[in-house]
């Protein structure tokens, strides 16, 4: 047996330990453990997938919304590009080219009906933009109509969808679309006539968009009236390229030649003037500043708003005093959650102590009483507190009857912070008692006895020996209660009034009422970070290893 032994000693001294067949021991071990690991993975896989799909991914998506801002660059891309060169600090509204870009963007957005959503988004940053975009959406078609009418004055044909389709579409497409119309089926995808894109670039682009959308709605461009913006584009293209008629279909060439000759004499109003005509707010640099400031695909705007800050041309500034609500709400949420945690400790500790020291039969009965709140609906319990706490409620009636409180000065116990603290302490108390109980149950009575036999009074024995050992239970209960409290929603909503609501109520408001999901997501993300930060601090101070749930 001597040689193998010496081999092994050599191996441990010079290199990795080898298993019997010469492979490194570590690799053999990994191989041996692989199946075990796979088995464990397979066992958790269903839950993992479930949580991932229904929980982690939606939360991730929600959190992504707190910085996502692609709606601006997606809806008005040309404007965003044009605004890049505009100096927001100039104090003047941008030049004509920005308004032109804005016109084309809006023309498409109005037809796609996305301009109201953009207005809604920008309204979070500057009040009034929502209605401005709505109003502008209605006014944009007037601009196109202005040119359409002038073209129609030359020849009524210009107003016909079929005429423009025939003029701009490829011959093969026109005949296919005509056949389709005759057979009452949807026409094939629109194809531009060769050369049109070069001769009439604006028209080609906007008409292609029109055709695509019309086809998407199962209508034929041959029958539908073109967008008004197509005429604006035609006017612009004919001004810059009088020979465009050569590119269109032979049948339409005459009309195009006539139009090209006539357009220089058309009445023309600049885009800027037209927009200011729609609403004079477009002359105000502030609206443009807002668009410019929030034109990037990702924004910190929601987070700034969640911290009562805003993006101004002069940098980040605090919002007006009377609009600062979120920091105060966060502060209140933390303070009240701590208060609730504290009252839960004060009320729960003696109960847990009693529970862990009673005979099993009595302890079970008491445990049922502790768990009773768990078995009734949260809504029912909270509503019960409304009945108990209101000014004409049971508690006030009792106090008046006893004579502690005058009938005309009944206590305000609900719809304020007190109501929230009372109701939430009651609801969260079991979450404090159960971990405390399970920790206390594991503290043998011999410790206190030992302390007493060593000369400690009842209090010293409790404080120096029993209490330190129950701290893990307090820690576990506190974390549980605090984290539950900080995100609580229903109870503050029902009994908190205005002064007793939590940050989660505000998040719910933005999710379901104001529909500002970005802000809701930012607030939620901040709440999440806050909880994680507190958890971290707790870990540093108490040590998460000291937390025991049983």
């Amino acid at each position, binding site marked *: 047996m001597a040689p193998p032994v010496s081999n092994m000693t050599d191996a441990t001294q010079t290199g990795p330990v080898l298993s019997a067949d010469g492979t490194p021991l570590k690799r053999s071990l990994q191989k041996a453990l692989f199946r075990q690991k796979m088995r464990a993975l397979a066992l958790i896989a269903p839950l993992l997938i479930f949580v991932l799909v229904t929980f982690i991914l939606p939360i991730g998506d929600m959190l992504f919304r707190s910085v996502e801002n692609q709606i601006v660059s997606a809806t008005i891309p040309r404007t965003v590009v044009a605004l890049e060169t505009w100096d927001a600090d100039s104090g003047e509204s941008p030049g004509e080219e920005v308004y032109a870009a804005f016109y084309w963007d809006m023309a498409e957005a109005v037809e796609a009906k996305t301009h109201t959503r953009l207005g809604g988004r920008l309204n979070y940053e500057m009040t009034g933009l929502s209605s401005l975009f709505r109003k502008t959406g209605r006014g944009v078609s007037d601009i196109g109509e202005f040119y359409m009418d002038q073209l129609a004055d030359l020849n009524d044909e210009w107003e016909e969808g079929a005429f423009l389709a025939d003029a701009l579409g490829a011959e093969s497409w026109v005949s296919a679309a005509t056949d389709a119309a005759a057979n009452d089926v949807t026409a094939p995808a629109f194809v531009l006539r060769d050369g049109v894109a070069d001769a009439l670039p604006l028209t080609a682009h906007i008409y292609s968009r029109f055709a695509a959308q019309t086809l998407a709605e199962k209508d034929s461009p041959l029958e539908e009236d073109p967008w008004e913006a197509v005429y604006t584009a035609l006017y612009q293209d004919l001004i810059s390229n009088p020979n465009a008629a050569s590119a269109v279909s032979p049948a339409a060439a005459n009309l195009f030649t006539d139009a090209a000759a006539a357009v220089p004499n058309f009445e023309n109003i600049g885009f800027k003037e037209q927009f200011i005509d729609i609403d004079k707010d477009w002359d105000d640099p502030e609206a443009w500043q807002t668009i410019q400031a929030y034109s990037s695909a990702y924004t910190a705007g929601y987070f700034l708003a969640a911290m009562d800050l805003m993006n101004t041309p002069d940098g980040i500034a605090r919002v007006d005093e009377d609009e600062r609500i979120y920091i105060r709400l966060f502060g209140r949420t933390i303070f009240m959650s701590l208060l609730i945690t504290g009252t839960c400790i004060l009320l729960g500790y003696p109960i847990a102590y009693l529970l862990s020291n009673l005979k099993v039969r009595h302890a079970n009965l008491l445990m049922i009483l502790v768990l009773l709140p768990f078995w009734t609906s949260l809504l029912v319990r909270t509503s019960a507190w409304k009945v108990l706490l209101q000014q004409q409620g049971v508690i006030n009636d009792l106090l008046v009857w006893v004579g502690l409180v005058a009938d005309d000065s009944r206590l305000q116990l609900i719809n304020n912070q007190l109501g929230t603290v009372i109701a939430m302490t009651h609801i969260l108390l079991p979450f404090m008692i159960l971990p405390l109980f399970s920790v206390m149950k594991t503290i043998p009575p*011999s410790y206190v*006895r030992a302390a007493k*036999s060593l000369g*400690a*009074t009842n209090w010293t024995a409790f404080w120096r020996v029993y209490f330190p050992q129950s701290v893990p239970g307090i820690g576990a209960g506190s974390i549980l209660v605090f984290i539950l409290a900080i995100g609580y929603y229903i109870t503050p909503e029902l009994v908190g009034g205005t002064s007793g609501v939590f940050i989660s109520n505000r998040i719910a408001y933005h999710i379901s009422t104001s529909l500002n999901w970005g802000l809701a997501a930012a607030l939620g993300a901040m709440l999440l970070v806050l909880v994680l930060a507190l958890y971290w601090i707790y870990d540093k101070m108490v040590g998460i290893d000291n937390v025991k749930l049983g």
Partner: protein
Amino acid sequence: MSLDSSADDFVVFDHVQKSYDGEVLVVKDLNLNIAKGEFVTMLGPSGSGKTTCLMMLAGFEVATHGDIRLGGKSINNIPPHKRGIGMVFQNYALFPHMTVGENLAFPLEVRGMNKSEREAKVKRALEMVQMGDFAGRRPAQLSGGQQQRIALARALVFDAELVLMDEPLGALDKQLREHMQYEIKHIHDNLGITVVYVTHDQSEALTMSDRVAVFNDGVIKQLAPPDDLYERPENAFVAQFIGENNKLLGTITGREGDIVSVDVEGGMTSKALAVNCGGVGEKTMLSIRPERVTLNSDGPNGTEALVKELIYLGDHIRCRMTVSGHDDFIVKVPNAAGHQHLVVGERTKVSWQTEDCRALDA
């Protein structure tokens, strides 16, 4: 040691009774005097009331009736922390959140002792149990034996005159337990403290104690020094509980002074020492220690025996045989040079001296 002398009545149980539920007495009329410096062990099966007695002495249980006196003063109404009794618990009860040093300093701290004095005493106590280097450790970092030493040091550090030990060695392995028995005994001898020790392990009781109180069913069956207890049990329970015992049931047929003649069930007759038996015609139990039985010799009380089973134990061979119809009769055959080898199924003769055979209550 004379129990009448009041100087020897350091701890006194005076007609103490204890009931938990008002229906059953766990301790029935207990009278026990313990002299200063004595090592008394309460020995008995579980549920015999020995731990209850210890807890009453420590103050964690209140006697339902009777008086417990310590140093001449009744301590019935003194709370445990004022009794000044050191105690070693079954699972040591070392405070897990304190270091060894803090554990030992705890009783001194609550007595308001200043820091330097405390440190000196802790150091001395730790050295006494040979744990001088462990003051900074946590109890969880110590082995069972080390924890046991610390628990002992903690019970001694505040100079208690009376130290109670509640099965302190129960959680240790056999070898360590035996080692600790000697150590506790030496500490007791060196410090001159009074120890009341509770155990269900009879060998522990026999090795360590000055006197052993054998408990059964709330009553002290016998209170005697270890050798008396083993060699001169006064009743069937003690004979059976302490050490190995051969019992032969029979009826008394005659009496001559201290000697009775007994007709053993199964046919044989034997003379025996009348210790705790009735008169002629009454049932009795004969108790003979296995090592007092001789093989193959014609003693005064002899009979045929059939070897049923042999167990080799190194220093001796344990031989189970059938004697007078009792098939659990044990004989210890020393593994001496040239001893005779028994064979299972072999018929042999057993005999014993009359004074080694005690007639006890049936």
